[in-house]
């Protein structure tokens, strides 16, 4: 009974390790699947020590690196099922240091658990670990050294961050007051989000200071470092339109009235598809549409959506035999002050779907 009461008061922690740190074996055991051990193990002992009386490591989840990294998404789901029954308040994974497969596994288990259980998920990696770029969005990845020599320090560091995240304290350094510790001061990789932070000087003071430095030819410290855009090579032209299937894609924000898929009018991060036969039939009704895009005057398009998504012309061209086929679905998104990163991701996602559907060409119409 005593233990139960204590368990209720303490934070519940689950820890993920690979086969090596989970004391099952080395590379020869990298193919093993998941197992669960009660209580802390290996690096978990140091973790438990660092957490002290505040939290208890209830279980250690172990998986072989090859097994996990072979299909990280699926393995993440499998691990989640084992972790869920413990109803943890925190998940720790690794640290993985420079180990690539282990880093991917730590990132993926954090992603699955963080998204589904909504709890803080903390891991640690060396900056060159591929897991950093893949999963920094989904987990708090503490910066570590490149080997287990850094274990004690990394565990201490991960624990401090975790306790801070779970403390519920208000982030007075942020306009939003969210409990979001500063990445540089807390030694974790930024998670690709932006926040308004309070600072010592007004934007006006900073701009004058920095402009004067620039005029003196000194380093001036722009608050944004300019991106380097890659050149995109256009693909080879279609050889014969008469045998090709074309899909219509638009970022003009055309959606059915009521916007069932919730595209945002500005800063949109979503895309969706609509079946043309029902979405834009020949006898369409203007009142059936709306525009989820606040960057242009949509009056003409709402009068006739074919002005944005030229289904009418495409139907004619198909009937005339000039084009093989119009793909039966239309891909819709809204491109208004959306960040270039997400645009590229949406492009990749749409591209994969278009490829999967064996479509030969895309007609992209914008506003």
């Amino acid at each position: 009974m005593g233990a139960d009461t204590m368990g209720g008061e303490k934070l519940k922690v689950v820890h993920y390790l690979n086969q090596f740190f989970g004391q099952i074996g080395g590379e020869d055991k990298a193919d093993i699947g998941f197992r669960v051990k009660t209580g802390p193990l290996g690096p978990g002992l140091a973790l438990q020590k660092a957490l002290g009386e505040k939290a208890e490591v209830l279980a250690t989840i172990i998986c072989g690196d090859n097994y996990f990294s072979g299909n990280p998404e699926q393995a993440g789901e499998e691990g989640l099922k084992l972790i869920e029954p413990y109803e943890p308040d925190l998940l720790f994974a690794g640290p993985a240091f420079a180990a690539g497969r282990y880093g991917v596994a730590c990132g993926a288990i954090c992603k699955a658990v963080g998204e589904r259980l909504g709890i803080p998920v903390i891991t640690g990696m060396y900056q060159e670990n591929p897991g950093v770029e893949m999963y920094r969005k989904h987990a708090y990845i503490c910066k570590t050294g490149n080997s287990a020599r850094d274990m004690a320090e990394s565990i201490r560091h991960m624990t401090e961050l975790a306790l801070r995240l779970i403390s519920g304290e208000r982030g007075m350094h942020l306009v939003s007051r969210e409990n979001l510790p500063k990445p540089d001061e807390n030694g974790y990789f930024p998670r690709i989000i932006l926040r308004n932070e309070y600072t010592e000087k007004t934007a006006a003071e900073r701009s004058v200071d920095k402009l004067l430095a620039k005029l003196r030819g000194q380093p001036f410290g722009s608050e944004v470092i300019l991106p380097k855009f890659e050149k995109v090579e256009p693909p080879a032209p279609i050889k014969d339109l008469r045998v090709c299937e074309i899909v219509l894609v638009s970022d003009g924000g055309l959606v059915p009235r009521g916007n069932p898929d919730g595209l945002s009018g500005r800063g949109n991060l979503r895309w969706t598809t609509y079946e043309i036969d029902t979405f834009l039939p020949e006898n369409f009704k203007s009142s059936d549409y709306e525009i989820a895009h606040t960057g242009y005057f949509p009056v003409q398009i709402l009068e006739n959506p074919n002005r944005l998504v030229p289904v009418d012309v495409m139907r004619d061209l198909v009937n005339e035999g000039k084009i093989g086929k119009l793909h039966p679905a239309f891909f819709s998104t809204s491109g208004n002050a959306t960040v270039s990163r997400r645009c590229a991701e949406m492009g990749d996602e749409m591209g994969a779907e278009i490829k999967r559907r064996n479509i030969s060409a895309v007609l992209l119409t914008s506003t």
Partner: protein
Amino acid sequence: MRLEIESIDIKDLQPGTKTYAENRILSVDLKELEKLILQDSRIKSVDIHLVYPGDRVRIVNLLDVVQPRCKIDKVEADFPGFIGKMQIAGSGRTRSLRGVGVLVSNPCTNRKYSAFLDMSGLVAEMSRYGGMRHISIAPDIADGTEERDFEDAVKIAGLKAGVYLARGAEGHPVDDVEIYDLDIPDLDCKSNLPRVAYYYQLYSPQHDHLGISDPCFYGADVRNLWPTMIHPNEILDGGVVGAHTVRALDTYTIQNHGVVKELFRRHNKDLIFVGVVCGVANMEPVTRTRQAVMASNLVKNILGAEGVILTKIHGGLPHVDLALVAEECEKLGVKTAIFIQPLISYGTLADTLLFNAEAVNLIITVGATMERIKIPLEADRFLGGTAETKIYCPDPIVQHAGDPLIDVEQFLIAGVHDHLGGSKVIVKEY
């Protein structure tokens, strides 16, 4: 041109039978103020309330926030072109009341974006207006008045109320005098200090309600403004006011213009402040280029600037205009510092840039003014609207002022962000 702003720190506000200030307490004859506002035939009636820090009140449909100010030594000179006679603003003496504001609401608005302020809870803590005392005014539309005409009337009612309050404080001891003295024709040509100009993007027509621009420059709208040089005092002293929506910018912010005040503070110490070029955001690429080239010419060849600070207005599109002006300046050898506003909180800072100009390499993040935040309801009283007043959210969420929790973008909370550089906010990667 020399401007003296004489500030009085107001510590309390109370209703009275006469408008006057004594011992830093401002008494307001609300009846007289009401009469003054109702002189405008476009206004049928007006709700006037005093609000205080800690009040459980939410003020909605905000169209403007005004610092009470009046000219001391000139007649019909307050907000020239708006309420005063047309003359150049920015010289002589101005009385300014600190710690007190006029919150101007348009309860009849049909605009999509509706700003608000809470006097208690998270919003009051975030907003620079949360700790101040205010007079909230909310006029009602007179029959037969056009929607846009009424907006102008509401705007002017707010300016008039500000002037009225400041006039009432006549005779009260002054706490502080700021002097803005800049004689541009007689600037020290032999100085070794760098010559710095300010490029002020005044307006963007992109959200013009019903296709009509808001007057914000000497009573006129500036949709088709050619790049124009003005004296910085004109900005501080009522030549420029906010548009008809509070979007991280209002008249109060302009009266306390961050960049202008900072350039004055550093004038003759670290730099020579050579003046201001105004311009606007444009809807057409040809116009945009023409304006950018002309503006950069004024900065370089007329003002003779070596460096320029550029600030923007409103949302996404104005970045493009602003960056083009900066690019043209850099081409002419003028070093630039440009303000930007990341529009979305997803991505790295570099991901959010809306222009691609290698020469524009000094970028100041004035605030991600569209950062989302969830606000729990603290208020049990609503001014300028009702609990049913819609509060804008970019996602298809329909929400109202009286909902237990609203999900908003920070630019619609008055006094949190400041496009003109006056707030201590920076955008960081997290």
